[in-house]
């Protein structure tokens, strides 16, 4: 089967000079045969409006990340979290549990907070993604970032990017009405350092400030 490199952000990468992909190819060769790639290609031809990625194919996707449009090519199994961290070097978004349980990987997709670790990157094709790197306007920090600093909303800081992305969403969603409501709507973000009281204070202050977040 042909490796589809067209439209790839990593156009220089070929099968020969990438040992990992070579290994993948060999290790899953049997599956590949069973899957009759020809049929997949034919399916692609039959439904031109559909995107089809065969087993070793990368899919061309267009994703706007922090205001910048990226034309990328991704393996279907790549999560948004791995795309951000490994392909795009946007390491602000953290990998905690990798299974949707801790919230460290929280980003906004089309304005809604989601767990990037359970999101397939191909499924964000055509969407807008905002990560912690996209919150500040140049040198000027986002009000939530300011509030986290002011209220000591972090200790080790590992969970902080996810907390802040969730906190911004929490206010935008209208769920920062009381301390109890904030705690409930921030419960998808786990902090091992136990910075919760200060995080709640930071959110309450931003909410009370009434700024555009």
């Amino acid at each position, binding site marked *: 089967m042909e490796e589809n490199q067209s439209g790839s952000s990593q156009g220089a990468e070929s099968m020969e000079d990438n040992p990992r992909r070579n290994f993948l190819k060999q290790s899953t060769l049997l599956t590949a045969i069973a899957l009759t790639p020809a049929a997949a290609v034919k399916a692609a031809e039959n439904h031109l409006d559909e995107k089809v990625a065969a087993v070793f194919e990368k899919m061309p996707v267009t994703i706007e990340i922090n205001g910048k449009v990226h034309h990328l090519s991704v393996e*279907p*199994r790549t999560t948004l979290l791995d795309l951000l961290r490994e392909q795009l070097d946007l390491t602000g978004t953290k990998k905690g549990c990798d299974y*949707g349980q801790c919230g460290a990987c929280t980003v906004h997709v089309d304005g*809604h907070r989601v767990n990037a670790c359970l999101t397939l990157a191909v*499924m964000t094709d055509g969407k807008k993604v905002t990560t912690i790197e996209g919150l500040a306007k140049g040198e000027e920090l986002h009000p939530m970032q300011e509030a986290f600093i002011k209220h000591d909303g972090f200790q080790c800081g590992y969970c902080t990017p996810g907390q802040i992305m969730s906190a911004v969403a*929490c206010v935008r969603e209208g769920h920062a009405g009381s301390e109890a409501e904030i705690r409930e709507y921030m419960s*998808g973000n786990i902090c091992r350092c136990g910075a919760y009281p200060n995080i709640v204070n930071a959110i309450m202050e931003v909410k009370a400030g009434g700024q555009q977040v």
Partner: protein
Amino acid sequence: MKQFQYVRPSTQQNVIAAIAQPGTKIIAGGSNLVDLMKHGVMSPDKLVDINKLPLKHITQGKNGVHIGALALNSQVAEDQIIKDHFPLLSMALNAGASAQLRNMATVGGNMMQRTRCPYFYDVAMPCNKRNPGSGCGALEGFNRMHAIFGQSDKCIAVHPSDMAVAMAALDATVTVVGRKGERRIAFTDFHRLPGDHPELDNNLAKDELILGVDIPANNFAKHSYYLKVRDRASYAFALVSVAAALDIDNGIIRSARLAMGGVAHKPWRLTNAEKALAGKPATTANFEQAAQIAMQGARAYKENEFKLKLAPASIIEALNHAAGLV
């Protein structure tokens, strides 16, 4: 995660054709399927992304509400029609998962989510649901979360969905479509008991797609309550949950709806208790009697015996809340 093919058809017809092929799975929000694929519990050869289908709408008609299969859990929970007329569903959805996950989770995906039994998740352990015939690790093992109703000696897992418990209580129907056309399934018949085939969670055929759910109009909006008992204050699966809905007129219960989560392989509707409540005054004493009736036939294991006490207490508490007595 194993490599797989990915397609994103834009018509229902193409989705149905695609899912009929072996090794294929639908993906909606991905919050359950991607998790299971990362754990190696499920390893489809091909994913069919259905997000191009127009199945996101929530529409109110004279006879009730229709909710598209791709409506998000957060969208449904916050929807004004749902909040006004079916608050039980809003409460159940908001009790499930986290705000991030509810933004990913769809109605179709939520009812199709698989059990959280730890042996099902651990591919090194025996599990009849994951690997039919391999045995059940939970039967003699860590079974604190497991079933007390409707289980078999092949599987004692519970269905983890909160939304489904409310749907079952509200007499919802599921509309599905396959190669032979559309059909409707009562929500209470959608999920299966394990019997000899715990690998089958529900009665959806391999080539069928869920289009949406209909909930008939009712008089329960004023007296509904979803109670979820869990190990942490929030963001954990239910040990036991209760969906309670009452139609009360002048202190008398005209009709009642009751379902439990975390106790069976499917949302567990308590029809005998509902019948016992109909026509009676809405009092705690009557709720206690209903709870007793509801518990008939319950059977526990070494580590989940506490559910035999927790479940009836939860029923009484949920009914008290629904009736406005607490």
